Structures are given as C-alpha cells and as structure tokens.
C-alpha cells in the first residue's frame, strides 16, 4: 500500500533491545523534547524580556540536545547490521539532527528565523487548506447538500473577508475608515448565511430549488450590499444598467443557442454579467447610497441564484466529473499561483507602467511609445532609399542570379531539364543586378524616388514566388542542394546586410542580431554536427566547440573586447587581431620580407597543387576552396615583394605608416558592421549549443533509413539533405526559436563591449538605460513592452509546434 503505513508497521516491529530500538527510544525522547520546545518557543518573546531570555537559553540547550540525540541515534542506527529498517531509522535520526541544527540557527540568526517562520506558516496553511479541500470534495460524492453547504460557507467566508478586509487592515494599521462599526463579526455571519443557503439549496429539488436559489441569492446580495465599503457604493443609473443587462442577456442567450446549450440559462447568466457591469462597472463608485448598493448586489445575487436554480440537481455522473475537475484545478493551483505571481503579474504591470509618465504617476497614453519611436537612435529609416543602390544589394543581386543559374545547370546535369520557373527567376535576378549597378552609378536619379525600390521589391517577390512554386513542384531533384543553394544562402545574407546597414537604430540592431546570429549560430552548429558525425576525434572537437557555452556572456564580451583592442600607432598592439594585422604589415616592410614572401609563395604553390588534385578527383568544393586560398596567398606574396606595405602597415612617401583596425569602438572603418563584430562572441558561444543539440538529433536518425538510402546509391551529401535533414526538422525548429528568444534579450555582451555606443544599442540595454539610469520607468517599460511583443510571435510558434508534436 502506501509508504507511510509500511513504515509505521515496521518501526513498531523493531526489537526493543537492539541498536535500532535504542535509536527509536532516542527518537521518542527527541519528539518529547520537540514538544517542550514548541511550548517554550510559544512563550519566547511573547512575554517580558527576562522570561524571553530564559526560554531562549532553554531552547538553545534543547536544540543542542535534539541535534546531539539525532546524531547519536543516526550513528547507532547506521553502525548496526545493515537492514532496511536500521537505515530508515538512521535517516529519521539524521532528520532530527538537522532539525536541531535548524532550530539552533533559528535562535541565532534573524534571517533564518524569518525563513523558518515562513516555511512553517506556509506548510501549516497549505496543509490546512488541502485537508479541508479534500474533506470538502469527498462530500460531493457522499452528500450533495453537505457539499453545497460547505461550498456556500466557504464562499461566504471569502466574501466576508473581502468585505471587511480593508477595515480589518485599517484597524490593524490604525487608519480606520468611515464605517469602522462593522468589523470582523461580519465574516462568520456571511459564512453562516452562505452555508445555510448552500445546504438548503443543495437539498431542494425542482420548483423549490428555483425559489430557494432566487431568494437566497437575493438575500445574500442584499446583505453584502448593506455592508459594502463606502468607497464602493455605486450610484445607479437606470438606462445604462438596464441596457447592459438586456444587451448581455441577449448576447448570453445567443451564445448559449449557438453552442447548443439552454437558451434561458445563457440569457440569465448574461443578464447577471450585464447587471454587474451596469451596476458596478459603469458608474462612478463611491457616490451612491447603501440602498443603491443593496439593490445592485441583491438583483445580482437573485440573478445568479436564478441561474443556479435553473440547472437540475446534479446526478452522480455530474458530481464525479465536477470532483475530477476541481481536483485538477487544485492540483494546478500552486503552479498557476507561482506563474501568475512571478510572470503574469510583472508582465501586466510593465505594460501598464509603459502608459504612465516617468515616475508612474499620471496616465500619458501612448506618449512613451511615440517618444521612443521619435528617437533617431531608436528608429531611423531615413536612409531607406540607399538600400537599393548599396554595394550589399548589388552583391545580393549577383549572388542571387549566380545561385539560380547554377541551380539550372545542376538540374540540366541531373535530368536534362531546364525548368522555366528558374529561368524566369534568373532573368528577374539579372534585372535586379543591372538595375542596382545603374542605381549605384546615379543612372536612375531621373526616375521618381520610389520607382527603383518598388521595382526591386516586386522583382524579389516574383523570384521568391517562382522559386517557392518550383520547389513545391520539384521536391526531389531541385538542383538547389549544391553550390546554387549555397549562393542563394549568401544572397539572403547580403540582402539582410543591405537592409540593416541602411536602417539604423536600436530596433533594427535587435532585428539584425536576431536574423544574423540565429542563422549563423544554428547554421554553423548544424554544419559542425553533420561534419563531425562519426568523424575521428569527434568528441574532442565537439567539446572544444561547446566549451564557450560555459562562459557567461559578460566573460565572452570581455574576451572579445580584448581581441578587438586597438592601440595608437606608436604603441605595440595588444589586441590579438590587431597584433596579427599590424604584425603582418611590419613583417612585410622588415628586412625579412623576402624570406617571408618566399615561404608564402611556396605555400601558395602547394595549395594550388592540392586544388589541382582535388579538381582531378572531381571534389569541386575542396578544389575551389584550396584554389581561392592559393590565389590569396599568391597575392599576399606579391604584396610582400612589392614592398609598399600590406595589412596594418602602408608605405606612404617611403615611410611605413601603422594603422590598427577599430573593430567595435567607432564606425569610421567598418560602418554599421561594428554590430557584426559584437555579434561574433554570441555566435561563438551559441554555436556549441546548437551543435550539441543537432548532434544528438542526427545520432537519433534511424540507421536503417540511412543504410537504405546508401544501398539505393545516395551520396553522403544526398543522404544528409534528403534523409537526415527532414528527420531533424523539429529539432531545427527548437534550436532556432530558442536562439531567437535568447538573442532578442541580448544585454550583457553589448553592455560590456560598447554599452550601446557607436550605434550598437539593443533593446534590453536601452530599457536598462532608460529605466534605471534616466529613472524614466515609463519609457523603460515601453521599451520592455516592445521587446516582449516582439518575442511573443516566436513563443507562439514554438508553443503551437510543441502542441502539434504532442498531439
């Protein structure tokens, strides 16, 4: 059966002479002392200081005794031959020892005392609540009248407390209001009325039930109305009251009809709600008389009672269902309470504060939002036209056209087809390319300002539609899985850069973070997970990549700040990247430049050879990569030989001039791209996270699927794109949404690296600055609300997907 019963039986079975029996005696002694304790502590502090001091000392001694006794008992129990019983007794004794310790701390430390008080109070309160709730629910199956009676009494108790709570508080604080005469006695009276009403109502049937319901409801309502707080007395206005009641009655009736329920009940319930709104929601509270309050609450009670009386007496099946439902609610109550206290309430409050002025005093409507969007540092789209003539846009158009062209070629290689949709898309891409070149060179200035942007957007949309349609019709051999797809990926990246370099401000920085960091971290993580899978030294490689995850963002930010550090030209560069950059230049102008050039050229030759071999073996990717590296090395070598400087050192008029790169502390060299340098640490940290999860997902792909694919002649690449990727799609969703949510809230990295200077501000840091440095909680909350609203859709998608998966 249950653990407690087993325990009880077996403890009494212990041989009284054995060590476990001794432990049991110790336990009993401890329990006795504990009881003395409770009595002693009751007197502690409650009476005059001398007795307090005595009980304090007494308690200390008792606490020490209990602790010692517990330890002793535990020692004896554990030293005895190992049995289930002796272990259990030992554990109990240990618990006793811990109790002694806590009690001692309780006496010694104020902080512990507060904590112990709250824990004990909380446990006692919740035990009481749950025991009562349990008894109450038991009654729902045994005696319905008793159940309704208890429910009525409980509701009455609650109402009574609500009615006098303010007064009781006022009595307590010494600020009693105008109607102090009614006081705590009201609580039992209302509870009693509720209990009687509940019992009678639960026991009555048919017409009697209706009468009891209306009469009891009206009576309770009148009683409550009579004792309503002065500040809550409504001044009734007939027209809105009746209009609201009638309106909601009709609405409730229609709703019930639509849902296939009883029309009358719906109408009555709607009418009750309308009456509540009309009587207490609409008019100014505090201006009315007691009579009006009695009328308002009485009719409300009567309507609610009528609704209750209309439903038939519950049969056993109803009761069982009701019991189950209530138990569920009670089971969820702790979690819901916690959620609402820690999450829902602060969120609501933040949103509320965002409509108040800086000190949360007056209501200012949307002014805070208007203010923040009026800040060019927050939202600046004045350069939108430049997007379409920027170098990034040109690169985007080029990569797009190239990618689509490569896809056509690949498709032709596969099955000799030239898909018309791709041809159209490629043609449109060419238009984009030529147009952006023309725009860059000022050839389109004669056209209306918005002409070329509109054409561009239309062209991009057309391409997206065409490619999407093509992909839908050709899910298998699309030709987009090879280099063409890669080029399209680069195109997407370039488009993003084109947009975010021109649209500036905190809001766009955050968006940029979300798009770039998420795609890069997830993409890199997936690539590494796929490539490292079953490779040599897989776990070592993955461990190293996962390692940054152990760092805090603050730590990562500081590390990368040092990496990017720039020093004046006279001083040695202490930042790693600038040391390399300037060191390379210094090497090129030193007397060892010749030797270095020879080495670099030799490396270039080796790389070129490697590329050649790779091309011969038809491994094109490796070949291209090595070939480009070889070209770059050859160029570097030639620069070394030319002797007019390279990288961080340029020779001007025969003199070497050093210049370090300002990665993050300014926009002179990299423009808005300093944001990207701040994003790198984040990518560095989160790639490991994505990799680990993807790696697990990849390992979870059934091996028979992969083997079947390979038997059918799939290459490794095809196996990845066609088998692994579809299998891990849900995981991709999880990783992407997780990273998006984390990136949205990015704060520490920016705070540490630039503190939002040089156009790198993000929402979370802006919120912090506005609220806690400027002391403007209105605007700060507005920024927090914007952040919250922008996270919502992602969370929605995430939750929907989880629900779908669960279903």
């Amino acid at each position, binding site marked *: *059966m249950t653990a407690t*019963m087993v325990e009880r039986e077996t403890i009494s079975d212990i041989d009284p002479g054995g060590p476990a029996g001794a432990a049991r005696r110790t336990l009993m002694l401890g329990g006795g002392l504990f009881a003395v304790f409770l009595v002693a502590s009751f007197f502690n502090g409650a009476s005059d200081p001398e007795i307090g001091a005595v009980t304090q000392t007494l308690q200390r001694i008792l606490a020490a005794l209990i602790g010692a006794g517990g330890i002793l008992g535990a020692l004896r129990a554990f030293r005895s031959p190992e049995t289930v019983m002796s272990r259990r007794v030992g554990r109990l004794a240990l618990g006793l020892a811990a109790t002694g310790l806590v009690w001692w701390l309780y006496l010694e430390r*104020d*902080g512990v005392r*507060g*904590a112990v*008080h*709250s*824990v004990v*109070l*909380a*446990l006692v*309160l*919740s*035990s009481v609540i*749950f025991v009562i*709730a*349990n008894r109450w*629910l*038991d009654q729902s199956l045994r005696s319905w009248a008793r159940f309704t009676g208890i429910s009525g009494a409980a509701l009455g108790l609650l109402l009574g407390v609500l009615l006098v709570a303010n007064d009781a508080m006022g009595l307590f604080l010494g600020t009693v209001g105008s109607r102090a005469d009614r006081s705590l006695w009201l609580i039992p009276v209302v509870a009693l009325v509720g209990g009687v009403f509940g019992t009678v109502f639960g026991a009555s049937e048919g017409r009697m039930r209706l009468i009891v319901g209306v009469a009891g409801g009206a009576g309770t309502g009148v009683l409550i109305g009579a004792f309503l707080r002065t500040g809550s007395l409504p001044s009734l206005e007939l027209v809105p009251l009746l209009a609201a009641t009638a309106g909601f009655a009709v609405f409730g009736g229609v709703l019930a009809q639509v849902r296939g329920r009883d029309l009358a009940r719906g109408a009555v319930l709607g009418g009750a709600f309308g009456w509540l709104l009309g009587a207490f929601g609409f008019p100014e509270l505090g201006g009315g008389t007691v009579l009006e309050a009695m009328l308002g609450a009485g009719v409300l009670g009567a309507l609610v009672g009528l609704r209750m009386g209309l439903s038939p007496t519950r049969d056993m099946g109803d009761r069982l269902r009701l019991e189950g439902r209530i*138990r569920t609610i*009670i*089971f*969820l*109550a*702790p*979690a819901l*309470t*916690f959620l609402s*206290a820690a999450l829902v309430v602060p969120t609501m409050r933040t949103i509320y504060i965002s409509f108040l002025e800086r*000190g949360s005093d007056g209501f200012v409507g949307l002014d805070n939002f208007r203010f923040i969007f009026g*800040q*060019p*540092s927050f939202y600046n789209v004045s350069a939108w036209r430049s997007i379409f003539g920027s170098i990034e846009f040109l690169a985007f158009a080029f990569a797009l056209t190239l990618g689509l062209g490569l896809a056509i070629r690949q498709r032709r290689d596969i099955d000799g087809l030239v898909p018309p949709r791709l041809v159209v898309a490629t043609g449109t891409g060419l238009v984009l390319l030529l147009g952006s070149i023309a725009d860059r060179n000022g050839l389109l200035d004669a056209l209306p300002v918005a002409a070329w942007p509109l054409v561009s957007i239309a062209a991009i949309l057309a391409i997206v539609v065409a490619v999407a349609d093509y992909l839908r019709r050709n899910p298998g051999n699309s030709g987009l899985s090879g280099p063409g797809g890669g080029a399209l990926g680069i195109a997407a990246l370039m488009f993003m850069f084109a947009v975010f370099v021109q649209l500036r401000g905190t809001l766009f920085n955050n968006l940029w973070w979300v798009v770039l960091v998420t795609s890069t971290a997830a993409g890199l993580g997936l690539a590494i997970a796929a490539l490292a899978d079953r490779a040599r030294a897989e776990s070592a490689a993955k461990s190293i990549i996962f390692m940054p995850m152990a760092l805090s963002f603050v730590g990562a930010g500081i590390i990368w700040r040092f990496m990017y*550090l*720039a020093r*004046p030209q*006279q*001083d040695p560069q202490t930042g790693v990247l600038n040391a390399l950059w300037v060191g390379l230049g210094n090497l090129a102008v030193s007397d060892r430049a010749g030797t270095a050039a020879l080495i670099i050229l030799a490396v270039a030759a080796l790389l070129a050879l490697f590329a050649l071999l790779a091309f011969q073996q038809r491994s094109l990717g490796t070949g291209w990569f090595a070939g480009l590296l070889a070209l770059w090395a050859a160029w570097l070598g030639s620069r070394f030989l030319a002797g007019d400087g390279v990288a961080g050192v340029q020779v001007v008029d025969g003199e070497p001039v050093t210049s*370090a790169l*300002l990665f993050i*502390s*300014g*926009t*002179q060299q990299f423009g808005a791209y300093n944001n990207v340098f701040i994003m790198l640490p984040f990518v560095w940290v989160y790639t490991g996270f994505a990799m680990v999860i993807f790696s697990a997902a990849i390992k979870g792909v059934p091996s028979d699927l992969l083997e079947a694919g390979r038997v059918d002649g799939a290459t490794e690449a095809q196996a990845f794109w066609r088998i692994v990727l579809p299998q891990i799609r849900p995981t991709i969703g999880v990783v992407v949404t997780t990273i998006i949510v984390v990136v949205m809230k990015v704060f520490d990295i920016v*705070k540490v690296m630039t*503190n939002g*200077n*040089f*156009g790198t501000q993000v929402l979370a840091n802006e919120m*912090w*600055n*506005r*609220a*806690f*440095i*400027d*002391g*403007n*909680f209105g605007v700060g909350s507005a920024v927090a609300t914007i952040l919250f609203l922008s996270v919502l859709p992602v969370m929605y998608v995430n939750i929907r997907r989880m629900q779908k998966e669960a279903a």
Partner: protein
Amino acid sequence: MKRTKLRFAAPLAALGLVIAACAGDADEPAASPAPAPAPAAEANPWDDIPEEDILGRALAGAYEGRSVSVFGSERSEVEAGAFNDTLALFREATGINAVYTGSADFEPQLNVMIQGNNPPDMALIPQPGGVRGFAAAGSVLAVPAAIVERTNAQFPAGTNDPYVVDGSTYALRYKTDLKSILWYNNAIFADNGYEIPDSWDALKALSATMIADGITPWCVGIESGGATGWPFTDWMEEMVLRLVDENVYDQWTAGDVTFSDPRIVEVAEEILSVWNTPGMVYASGGTIAATPFGANAEPLVNGQCAMHRQAQFFASFFDSAGGTIGPDGDVGVAYFPAGGDGRSPVLTAGNSVAAFRDAPEVWALMTWLTDAEGQEARQRAQATRAAAASGPGAASGFMSSNANLDPSVFNPVERTWYETLASASPARFDASDLMVPARNRAFWDEGTAAVNGDKSVADAFAAIDAAS
C-alpha cells in the same frame, strides 16, 4: 481515504514551497532597517529637538548605538577608505555606526533601491539633476532649514543652489571638484622653453608649435564605461564658459538655449577641429572615444603628450601612474586658460549628501560631514591614504570649498586650488550634471558619437535636443 490523501501530497508540498517563497520575499524587506520614520514607540525621538542642536546632541552621545547606511559611487582604496576613516571618527565622537557601501553601478542601483522602497539612509550623489529628479518624485527628503543655514554659512554663496527645488534644499555639497585645470609635462615645457598660455588662442598657437617640434600636445580620452563621453562634456562646458559667457551657459544648462543653438554647435566644432588636427592628440586606446579617461595620466607623466585638461581629482591618477605633481615634479599644474576677454571662469563639480530617512542620527551625520570638522577629517584621511599609496606629499584627490577649513590640511598645490575655489568668479557647476539624467546621458552618448566622427556635431546635438 488513503489514496486521496496521497494524491494531494505533491501539490501540498508544492504550494507550501510557493507560499514559503512568496512569504520569504515579503519577509526580507521587513528584516532590513525599515525606511519608514522611526517607530511610534520611541516617542518621536527628534520632533521636539531644535534642528540646530542635532549634531550637538549626537556628539553628546544621545544617539549612541544607532546606525546610518551610506551609499555612493566611490570605491577606490584611497577614496572609499578615506570616507570609511571619516565615518570611524564620527562613530568615535557620537557612537553612531555609519556604514558606507560603494558601487560601480551607483546610479542604476540607487534608482532600483528607491523604486523598491528600500533606499539607503543617505547617498553621495554626484548629479544635482539626479537629486532634483528624486526631489520631484518625492523620494529624497528636504534638508531641515536650520541645517541648510548652518552649512550655507560655511560655503561660497550659491554652492547649494543646484539642489534647491521649490525653495527646499534636498542635498548639501560634500566634495567640490575644481575642473578648470591644465596639467602639463614639466620636462617638455622646460626643455622647449614653452610658456603656460594665458588664452585659448595662445593655447592653440602653442599646440601648433608643439606639433611642429614633433611633440604630441594633448592627451585626450573620454571612455568611462557606462558614462563614456563625460570628459568631452567637461571640455564643452569649459569652452562655453570661455568662448561664449556664463549667462548663455546658465540658459543652456536650463534648456532655454538648445544644443542646436549655433553658439553651442560652434564651440563643439572648435574643440573637435583642434582634437582632429593630425598629430594633435595622443589617445592610448586608439581613438579618443576608446581611451579610458584615466589612461591619460601615464602618457603625460612619460612625456608622450604635453598637456591634459582634467579636474583636480585626477591628481590621484598621477599618483598611481608614478608621477609627482608640482613645480618640481613630473606634472605641472596651471589654470586652464581663459577665453582672452578678461573673464576667468571656473568650472566646478562635486557630490552632495542627500538623506532618505528622517532620523536625527542621519541629520547629525549630514551636518557633521559638511561641517569644517568633517571636511577636514576627510581631507586628512585621504591625504594619509594617498601618501601611503603613492609616497609622501601626494595630492589626496579630495577638495572642499568650505571656507572655514584650516589651510594646513592641504599640500601647497592643493592650497592653490582651495584658494581658486574660494575666490572663483564666475564659477559654474558642471552643466551636464545639472541636466535631467536623460539629457545628461544623451549629451554623453551623442557627444561621443560626434567626437568619434560617427555623426556631425549638428546631427548629434539635434539628437540631444530630441532626447529630452
């Protein structure tokens, strides 16, 4: 029965924990010293006491055993240590236990504490704008009139004006910084026979000569973490006082003259045209905006640049950079040249003590700190600590404008600053500190953007106007 009981065990435990967690939260503030007025049981300890007697009573031991918590931004061994020494003296004299806590994140922390209804008893607040904000929100207490009178009598007229809102004074000046100081490398000036210039134009001419002689004239760096940009705002204030005048300065401070005003924009452009002259500025962090303001001390001592403009508290930075100050030391001190129109304006700054708990021990401490005795105690303690840290005779970094001080607490260089502060006219308080926090921060941030060349001065200053 048994089954149902068990079914409830889990939620029961969970709810217990939740309630415990909530109750624990609610308990904590109660456990810490209550911010509310002294409990009624103590029969209002100080309502009957004449305000001017508070310090006297405290010194007589009337409030022995009580505590005052003080919160501030000073954290260095020398500064925070000296303040703790001062509080120890106060404890010895009165038996009041004052405890100081310093935080690098002072402003946001203080805001959070106040918002959380858990403010310190007293805070050392640098920005009068912040004090006035708290006063408007009703979170800081007005200083009793008798104490204000007593303190005002010891300081130059108008010292506590920045802390006045609607006729009530909400804070009292504690430390006063003298900002209009030109620090220079003695060896460079002596070797090349340079003279200390007496006007802005002479200063520019000297800078040009230095560049021609192969010397980098200026050390400038304005990085300061979350407050990056404030040294630039100091330069702006100096130059508005010099190139325009103090009336415009006041209007500008109050917001009646905007940042977009051509006179203000011109001053910024003048400063930046000097800074951006090739070879003019040594910035050890690569750019002016990336160089910590404290990193200017070492190159000036080493002769990598010849001049630097910074407040008198910067002395402690030279101390830790291993440089000595004075006519015979590594670094010389002079008044930052005037505009050349006969006026000799002085820019000041400093911090103030403000109270958040209405209790006699708090007011007693506040009175004592601003009194000559407390100010001298701080200067002595800080001088001792500075000497221990960087050798005898080091400048303390503390400065006071209390007129009743014994001048012998200062070293010779400090004494000249003390005298300058006493006689300065026109003297003006740091404008950015007087602005509301949002405008102050925009001034820092947008100023940094302008210094960095990310924005034109006109654009950056228009953004400051839009920001508040």
